[in-house]
């Protein structure tokens, strides 16, 4: 497949547990983004990686959230000590470089997280 892939597609966890969500961007895309979609807050930016630059973490809602990107490709979003308000669909997107004017972000299918 040529698109952005995410795993798992669904995750159910208990409050207080840690979870890891994975994103594989489109091959060759150097820019990668994480967003969250929830009923109460809509679509929110979380974090942005561009090449080897320091990530823009300005959208992370708390220090329980972290993300890394290994080798400039795959990214993992980690949520520690999950809370019920973390329940949402976590969407990953990628774009070719993050610097081209007419660039579009391509979204993956999302991971639906439910915290019980």
């Amino acid at each position, binding site marked *: 497949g040529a698109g952005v892939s995410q795993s798992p597609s669904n995750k159910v966890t208990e409050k207080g547990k840690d979870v890891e969500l994975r994103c594989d961007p489109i091959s060759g895309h150097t820019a990668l983004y994480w967003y969250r979609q929830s009923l109460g807050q809509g679509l929110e*930016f979380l974090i942005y990686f561009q090449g080897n630059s320091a990530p823009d973490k300005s959208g992370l809602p708390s220090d329980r959230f972290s993300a890394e990107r290994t080798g400039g490709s795959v990214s993992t979003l980690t949520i520690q000590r999950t809370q019920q308000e973390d329940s949402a669909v976590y969407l990953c997107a990628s774009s070719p470089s993050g610097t081209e004017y007419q660039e579009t972000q391509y979204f993956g299918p999302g991971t639906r997280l439910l915290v019980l």
Partner: protein
Amino acid sequence: ELKVEQNPLFLSMQEGKNYTIYCNYSTTSDRLYWYRQDPGKSLESLFVLLSNGAVKQEGRLMASLDTKARLSTLHITAAVHDLSATYFCAVDRLYGNKLVFGAGTILRVKS
């Protein structure tokens, strides 16, 4: 702070009718996007608009941008059932790369 407002939030249309979805944003932005989301699915890119007066069309959908008014419109012509989905507009700043989304417009086309 960049904010995006869409209206209406819900739109029920008859097949064959025309309608427009509006997207207002609060501060100067470099790029405006329209995305479509089907239930349980991810976001599909429809249009990216870059300059004042930009107009793009794909099938029954046409998007336009007025940067002076900070307004984009998504016009639906002769709606068909397949257009039923949620439509989001989003804006960002070049090199900012944080898409700020509107709340979305749920479109239902009735036959």
